[in-house]
C-alpha cells in the first residue's frame, strides 16, 4: 500500500493533477464566492457577518484535519520507518499553519461585531492558538535541525504530542462553558444549519481543499526534486 506514495510512482501524476486543479479552480472559486457573498441569505441574528463563517469554518476544519493527518502519519513513520511520509507531513505543515492562522484572524474579525471583542481567552480559541504553536514548532524543527533524520524524529514527536490538543479543540465547546458557540454541523445528521447556508459553506470548503491539494502537490514535488538533487552526485 505504501508503494503508492513512492516518489517515482507518483511523480508523473503530480504534473497532471496540478494542471487539472488549475483548470477547474477559478470556475469553482467564482461559483463559491457568488453563493457566499451574494446568493446566501443574511442570518436572522448575526446579519451579514455570518458570511465570515464561509471562510472561518472551512479554514478551521482544514487546520484541524491537516494536523490530525500529520500526527497520524508521524505515528506510521515511527512504526514503519517510511521516509516518504515525512516528505508529505513536511509539505502539509505550512498549509495547516496558514489555515489555522486564517481561522484565528477571521474568528477575531467575526468576534468584534458579534461578541464586542477581538479576542477572548476562551477554551476553543486558546486551543486553536496552541495548535498554531505546534505547527510553528513542527516547521521550525525542519528548518533549524540540519540532520534530516534528527529533524524528522523531533518533528514527529512534536506532531504526536500535539495530537492531544485535537480532541481538546473539537470538544472544548462541549466540555467547558465557552463564548464560542457549539458546532452547528454534525456528522450524525442533527445539523442546525439551513441548506441555504450549508451550500456556500461546502462550496468554499471544496475550493479551499482544492487549493490545499495544489499546494501539497507543488511542495511534495519540490521535496522530491530537492532529495534527488542532493543524491545526484551519489548516483
Amino acid at each position: 500500500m505504501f508503494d503508492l506514495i513512492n516518489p517515482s510512482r507518483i511523480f508523473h501524476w503530480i504534473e497532471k493533477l496540478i494542471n487539472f486543479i488549475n483548470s477547474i479552480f477559478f470556475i469553482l472559486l467564482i461559483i463559491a464566492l457568488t453563493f457566499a457573498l451574494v446568493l446566501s441569505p443574511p442570518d436572522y441574528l448575526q446579519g451579514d457577518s455570518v458570511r465570515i463563517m464561509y471562510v472561518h469554518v472551512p479554514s478551521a476544519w482544514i487546520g484541524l484535519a491537516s494536523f490530525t493527518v500529520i500526527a497520524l502519519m508521524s505515528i506510521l513513520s515511527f512504526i514503519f520507518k517510511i521516509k516518504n511520509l515525512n516528505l508529505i507531513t513536511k509539505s502539509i505543515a505550512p498549509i495547516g499553519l496558514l489555515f489555522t492562522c486564517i481561522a484565528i484572524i477571521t474568528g477575531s474579525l467575526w468576534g468584534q461585531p458579534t461578541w464586542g471583542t477581538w479576542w477572548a481567552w476562551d477554551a476553543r480559541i486558546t486551543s486553536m492558538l496552541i495548535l498554531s504553536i505546534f505547527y510553528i514548532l513542527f516547521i521550525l524543527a525542519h528548518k533549524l535541525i540540519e540532520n534530516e533524520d534528527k529533524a524528522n524524529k523531533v518533528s514527529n514527536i512534536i506532531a504526536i504530542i500535539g495530537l492531544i490538543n485535537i480532541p481538546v479543540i473539537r470538544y472544548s465547546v462541549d466540555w467547558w462553558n465557552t463564548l464560542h458557540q457549539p458546532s452547528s454541523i454534525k456528522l450524525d445528521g442533527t445539523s442546525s444549519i439551513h441548506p441555504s447556508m450549508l451550500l456556500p459553506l461546502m462550496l468554499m470548503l471544496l475550493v479551499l481543499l482544492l487549493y490545499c491539494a495544489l499546494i501539497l502537490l507543488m511542495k511534495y514535488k519540490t521535496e522530491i526534486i530537492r532529495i534527488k538533487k542532493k543524491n545526484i552526485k551519489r548516483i
Partner: protein
Amino acid sequence: MIQNFISMNGYGFFVWLSFAITFLACGMLYYKTYKTLKKYEKDFAKELDQLSEAERKLVLEKSKVASQFLASYNKSI
C-alpha cells in the same frame, strides 16, 4: 443595491477584510511555493545538464524520477 452589497448592512469592513486576508494569504503561499518549485526545477535541470553524457545516462537509468522530471521539464520549456 451596490452600496448595500459593499456595506453588508454595516458589517462590510469585517466581511471584506476576512475574505481579503484569506485570499491574500493563500495567494502569498501559492506564489512562494511556485517560485521555490521553479527554482529547484531549474537548478536540478542545470545540474543534470552539467553531467557528462555517460554520467547523465547512468543517472537517468538509475532514477525514475530524474528521467520523468527531465521529460516533463523539457516539455514545459
